[in-house]
């Protein structure tokens, strides 16, 4: 079983390929010597050579480690837009792997719940679990059939169940609907990444079903490695926890309450 990798490196490298995998989503591949390590749920901080603004690197979940690193970038603002418009050969600085990854299941089954770009670390996890022959049910929620980047990679390694808000593919509605059904078999662990409201809903459903749930959070980050103290989130008891070093993967109950 793989565990979180703490041997982070700072690598100045180049883009190998930028592929638009869905409208607004680019899969960025970059060369890594030495190879990028890290497990699903860990992330990298990435910055291009774009001058003075934006200043900070951007956090992205690792989609693929090894000689060619991969991240999935959703274009939501200036930094991600610059990254999505980069070209093969452009310079890229990559710091990672950072944070704590998903803890792989002791139970025999894994249920992965992805919303939007939250699919990124879960594709990596699904592929890793498939290598170990752990059965994976992958619940993937999106707005429309166009918003499902990396769908084919998931189909190759997991039992994929899609929900869309407009019903253009899969079940119409939220991803929480098939989740409730799936959890009738309690012998599983749930892994989730996506918008905060979705994670909270998933966390509560799992708590009610008595199933372990791990969520990967986001928060604004400057350093990604515990030094700036910028990525604090508030725990149910009012204390702070840091997404980059305490997370980004947390046991859902420690964030949304209902800790057993």
């Amino acid at each position, binding site marked *: 079983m793989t565990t979180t990798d703490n041997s982070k490196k700072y690598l100045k490298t180049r883009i190998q390929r930028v592929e638009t995998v869905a409208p607004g989503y680019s899969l960025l591949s970059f060369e890594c010597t030495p190879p990028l390590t890290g497990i699903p749920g860990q992330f990298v901080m990435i910055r291009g050579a774009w001058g003075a603004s934006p*200043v900070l690197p951007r956090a992205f979940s690792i989609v693929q480690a090894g000689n060619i690193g991969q991240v999935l970038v959703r274009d939501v603002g200036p930094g991600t837009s610059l990254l999505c418009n980069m070209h093969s050969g452009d310079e890229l600085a990559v710091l990672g792997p950072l944070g704590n990854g998903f803890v792989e299941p002791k139970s025999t089954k894994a249920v992965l719940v992805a919303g939007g770009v939250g699919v990124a670390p879960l594709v990596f996890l699904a592929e890793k679990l498939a290598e170990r022959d752990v059965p994976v049910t992958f619940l993937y929620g999106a707005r429309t059939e166009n918003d499902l980047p990396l769908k084919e990679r998931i189909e190759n390694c997991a039992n994929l169940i899609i929900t869309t808000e407009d019903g253009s593919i899969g079940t119409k509605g939220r991803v929480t609907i098939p989740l409730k059904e799936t959890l009738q078999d309690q012998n599983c662990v749930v892994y989730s990444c996506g918008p905060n409201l979705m994670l909270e809903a998933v966390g509560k459903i799992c708590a009610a079903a008595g199933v372990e749930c791990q969520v990967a959070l986001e928060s*604004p980050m400057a350093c990604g490695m515990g030094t700036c103290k910028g990525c604090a989130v508030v725990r149910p008891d009012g204390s702070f926890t840091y997404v980059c070093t305490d997370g980004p993967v947390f046991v859902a109950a420690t964030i949304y309450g209902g800790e057993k």
Partner: protein
Amino acid sequence: MSDILKTTLGPLVLKNPVMVASGTFGYGLEYSDIMDISAIGGISVKGISLSPRPGNPPPRMCETPSGMLNSIGLANVGFDVFVTEMMPKLRAAGATVIANAYGTSASDFAELCRKFDDVEGIAAIEVNISCPNVKSGGIHFGVSGKPAAEVTAAVRQATRLPVMVKLSPEARDLKEVARAVEEAGADSVSLINTFRGMSIDVNTRRPRLGVGFGGLSGPAIRPLAVRMVYDVAQVVRIPIVGMGGITCLRDALEFFLAGASAVQVGTANFSNPTVAVEIINDLREYCTNRNIRPADLVGKVEMG
């Protein structure tokens, strides 16, 4: 050590004049994986208070054009944990440690600095009278000469370590504050800390930071920081440590020419964690090629 980069700031001798700025490099140890932290001229560690501080409610940072706002609120482990857990490792790593000290009153500052005096391996104390993100203390001491001098005098009495006082760009009269802390016994001044700024999320209509305001840092403020270093250099004789938006050798040289004897690199550590070491290497090459020392550049801007 006869390295061409060796730098003297009054009683403080550094292996080179490029430090990392407080709050942007944690306690330094986090970076041991990716670089040799003993190569850095000095590590100004995250601001330390007598007791641990949890910091401000999130969000604590957001980006602005060529800069960032932070409202961390001096979240830190407190003196005891710093000394028992961090210092042994910093000593072992051969790091040059500058203790960035924060207190809520002159006597609070004095008590903290007295305690630092007994800690092995601290090269100097940087007295932070300029943090814009805390309710009491911080910037309130830094806006005018009198409270700034009071804190400096109290610290001066409490420690034999070199005292570097960190000035605020929000001082009503920066030159007056600089002169006041010089007179009160500071061995050097460092500047600038961040400017108080605000950014609003127009969708939610709420400030983008949890406490409403934050300190602006990064390349955006560099022209202001260079001007302030120049201004202060006209009125004090103690050495100046310049900072504000430094990202490369060129930026560092700008500060030397304006009057800084050493520099600190802050926000740029986030963009590139090895930037300080890169600047040091580039500076060594620059000085070697020209057969000069950094001190030969200090204040050498040619006006008019």
